[in-house]
């Protein structure tokens, strides 16, 4: 990643993962179960115990926001560990709820083993939060951050509940769900990290806004992945989940009824029929989905940067946070 700085390459993430390994060791989890949780955490990189570089940058978010708010980057290590562990567990459950195929690193272990690993990751996160409570650097802030952590995940589950019940959300529902799931998750990292350094309500609100906007941007970029087709001409189909992605939700909202029905029909078989996939993409293009998506990317990026600016962040951490946002959502 272009924005990586020499003093943060890998080392910070490694330090967080060393703490996670210590939690597993101290928790007396059995080695074969730890190996399964490790695979869930690192995906295909379990043997190296490394996340891919695109993912590892996000593990810095709580620490960078803590530093940006006037604290020490390392005060947020256990918060970052809990954040990653909880999210990984939630990601497994999300895949099973959506009946997605589990990652190849699960081999033939099946959803039962995956669900149990998710449970292990949740309790590992709880242990990480206990470690945060016992840190000497932030004894007053820790209880509030831990409560905020659990409230945030409760809100994310509420968003997930509605998402599961709505295969074809309206645009308004899409934005509410994006804010409740991805927005709340990233806001937790940013506001939670900052809270370890400051109790100023205005600053904390700005860090919340910053994280929420970043989370929504992450959701939009993830949605666009659903629209991307394989390069191979033989298999240019679309992914089954595309119906909840922003370009499709927008197109369904604005297209006249006959075209909306046409889009539904195309999407119904676009996961196995390249011709129908092409027809679906043409309908989406003709609806103005690119202009709408680019306008929303512009809006959420600029709102994120404005919220961060309002906090008057510590210079070095502020620059890194700005870089993370502009790398995620470049001006096209």
């Amino acid at each position, binding site marked *: 990643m272009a924005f990586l700085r020499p003093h943060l390459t890998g080392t910070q993430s490694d330090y967080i993962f060393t703490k996670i390994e210590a939690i597993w060791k101290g928790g007396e989890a059995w080695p074969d179960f730890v190996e399964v949780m490790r695979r869930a955490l690192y995906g295909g990189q379990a043997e190296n115990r490394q996340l891919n570089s695109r993912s590892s940058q996000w593990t810095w978010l709580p620490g960078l926001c803590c530093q940006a708010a006037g604290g020490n980057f390392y005060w947020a290590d256990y918060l970052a560990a809990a954040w990653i562990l909880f999210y990984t567990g939630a990601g497994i459950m999300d895949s099973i709820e959506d009946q997605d195929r589990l990652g190849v690193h699960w081999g033939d272990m099946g959803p039962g083993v995956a669900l149990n690993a998710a449970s292990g990751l949740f309790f590992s996160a709880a242990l990480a939060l206990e470690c945060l409570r016992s840190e000497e650097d932030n004894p007053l802030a820790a209880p509030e951050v831990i409560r905020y952590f659990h409230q945030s995940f409760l809100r994310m589950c509420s968003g997930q509940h509605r998402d599961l019940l709505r295969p074809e959300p309206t645009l308004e529902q899409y934005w509410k769900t994006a804010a409740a799931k991805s927005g709340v998750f990233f806001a937790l990292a940013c506001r939670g990290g900052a809270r370890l350094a400051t109790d100023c309500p205005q600053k904390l609100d700005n860090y919340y806004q910053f994280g929420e906007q970043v989370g929504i941007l992450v959701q939009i*970029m993830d949605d*666009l992945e659903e629209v991307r087709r394989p390069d191979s001409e033989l298999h240019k189909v679309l992914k089954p989940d595309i119906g909840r992605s922003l370009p499709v939700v927008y197109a369904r909202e604005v297209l006249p009824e006959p075209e909306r029905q046409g889009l539904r029909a195309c999407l119904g078989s676009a996961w196995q029929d390249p011709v129908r996939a092409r027809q679906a993409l043409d309908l989406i*293009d003709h*609806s*103005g989905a*690119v*202009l709408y998506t*680019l306008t929303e990317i512009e*809006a959420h990026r600029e709102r994120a940067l404005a919220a961060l600016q309002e906090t008057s962040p510590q210079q070095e951490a502020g620059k890194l946070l700005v870089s993370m946002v502009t790398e*995620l959502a470049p001006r096209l």
Partner: protein
Amino acid sequence: MALAQVVYHISRDADFATRMRSDPESTLAAKGWRLTKEELAFLMTVLKRETFDKVDVEHLAKAVATPWRF
């Protein structure tokens, strides 16, 4: 979802798109539509870029899509 409706009309109505580029406030008022100042500013920023109307959604995805998982 006024922004979505405005964007749709820009994409389907060339005259409306031309008027939006030159005088957005009056063009919206003539239709009885209203965007917030912020929405209009973001829309105009993208409209003024030459790249957006040369890109389809598949190319946009290839350019910026980022699957999200730790």
